[in-house]
């Protein structure tokens, strides 16, 4: 296995945490993992993204030039990272904030209205966990147990946020079933 | 003609103008986002008449969004 995932969106959308959850889970499953954030000048605003590799082999370059999965949480992210997907790769789109489609037709595309679902659940901050759920239901990259433990790890010190995020994760998994894979 | 013009795309929704206005007529337009992704500050047309052209909003705006005309 050699998954190369790019998570991307606005700062504040929990992009880094999405990557962290997958990385932790991978590590707990005994995989080799790496997590690489983009980092800009410390001024706020703009986009954020991170590159996550989960692999049976030791991780070479942590920079992902050919992603197997891209999770785009806002429009600029979609525009920027679509081209980095390998043919046949998976593109997850946060359709609540993205009203355009991808340019390519050689990839699998899924649209999840993550913000809307989160809104329904009463907490906009969990849109990222919803997307992680969606991703996991598409591809069993890591084990279910590992993901749950990863949530616990990432929310260390903020334990009271764990249940709602796991709930969101599960809603994300379900959401895929109600989704349409745009081919 | 009294006018308070917002160079909307520069606005960062910081609300300093809102707090500064002695007439409390500035608000954030929660229905719209500008190109930067912020809800811009506005004065509803029905409120502009309350403006006393004091310029306080412009003085406090860190992003030179506001022009005040009397």
């Amino acid at each position, binding site marked *: 296995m050699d998954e190369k995932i790019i998570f991307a969106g606005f700062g504040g959308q929990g992009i880094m945490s999405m990557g962290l959850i997958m*990385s932790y889970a991978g590590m707990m499953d005994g995989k080799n993992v790496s997590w690489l954030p983009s980092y800009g000048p410390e001024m706020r605003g703009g986009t954020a993204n991170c590159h996550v590799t989960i692999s049976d082999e030791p991780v070479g*370059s942590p920079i992902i030039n050919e992603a197997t999965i891209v999770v785009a949480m806002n429009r600029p992210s979609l525009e920027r990272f679509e081209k980095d997907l390998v043919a046949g790769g998976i593109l997850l789109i946060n359709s609540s904030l993205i009203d355009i489609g991808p340019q390519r037709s050689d990839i699998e595309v899924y649209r999840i209205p993550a913000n809307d679902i989160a809104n329904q659940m009463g907490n906009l901050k969990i849109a990222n966990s919803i997307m992680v759920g969606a991703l996991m239901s598409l591809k069993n990259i890591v084990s279910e147990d590992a993901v749950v433990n990863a949530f616990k790890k990432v929310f260390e010190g903020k334990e009271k946020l764990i249940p709602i995020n796991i709930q969101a994760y599960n809603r994300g998994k379900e959401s895929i079933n109600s989704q349409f894979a745009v081919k | 003609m009294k006018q308070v013009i917002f160079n909307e795309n520069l606005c960062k929704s910081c609300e300093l103008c809102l707090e500064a206005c002695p007439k409390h007529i500035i608000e954030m337009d929660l229905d719209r986002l500008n190109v930067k992704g912020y809800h811009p500050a506005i004065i509803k047309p029905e409120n502009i008449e309350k403006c006393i052209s004091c310029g306080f909003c412009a003085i406090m705006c860190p992003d030179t969004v506001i022009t005040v005309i009397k």
Partner: protein
Amino acid sequence: MAKVLMKGNEALAEAAIQAGCRHYFGYPITPQNEVTAYMAKRMPKVGGVFLQAESEVSAINMVYGAGGAGARVLITSSSPGISLMQEGISYIAGAEIPCVIANVMRGGPGLGGIQPSQSDYFQSTKGGGHGDYKLIVLAPSTIQEMADLVQQAFDIADKYRNPVMILGDGMLGQMMEPVDFDNIKKGENHIEEKTWATTGMGTRKKKNIINSLELDPQMLEKHNIELFKKYEKASKEEVRYEMTNCEDAEIILVAYGTIARVAKNVIELAKRENINVGLIRPISLWPFPVEPFEKTVNYVKRYLSIEMSMGQMVEDVKLAVNGRKPVYFYGRAGGMVPEPAAILEEIRKISGGAK
């Protein structure tokens, strides 16, 4: 303790603490700020000292004082900050004070940018400060290795009474990987007593002096020669490198740190095209490993040094190869990271489309 997922900057900090370092002096600069933040949090918990100095100039001289007073001491910064330390580093080397200095490199020159770079190779290995001295320079390429080398760095520093530099880059500082601290020898146990340190005379008979001044040129030359004896010893005992797929490579990449990881991807890519590519990864940049070149120079066709710079380590590669085989260079600058495909393309180009 199980594996933990950590940023390189944090792993560096934690490894130092586990190696018995209880004194950290520094000044904020991107992309190494996580070190300062981590130290600020952790040091008080372990009874150590975290001090944010007023500048890098001041910080390196605090290191001089603390190291001279016998402590295991760490300082970290990034390129412009390291430039400001050059006088201090020369003093530390001259006065033979052990310490560990980490440079999390970013693009230059000048204010430049904050993306990863390797353009301080010359500064680190040839001596950015004045005078004849050498830093022992170690270049990790994974977060685990960052932790391991930091621990070794403290031991080497003590062994030679010499500053040791960890040369990383922004990517290594910012990325996370699992890291295991179990292998780190816990520092307190194996720090030898520093009888030369200024600790207050106490019952000691002779006063200790930490100094690099010697106005008599004959004595100063003697001091220089003694320093170089140490360096000679180090260049025998502290050479570190890794060779990958070199056995029957026709072209060997030479790369350190982050870029060595990219190079490993290139090896795989090249295999698909039936090009046999090997990799020499210097881990100690000074002493620069000559052995792997001796081992390969007879059969390999050419070497290609890949760097995130306009070409610096390539000079050491040329010195090691000494004209016996052609040496090429491919680099990206200013924070750009060479892509595997581009390197492969370069390989094809210099091989004259061979194989």
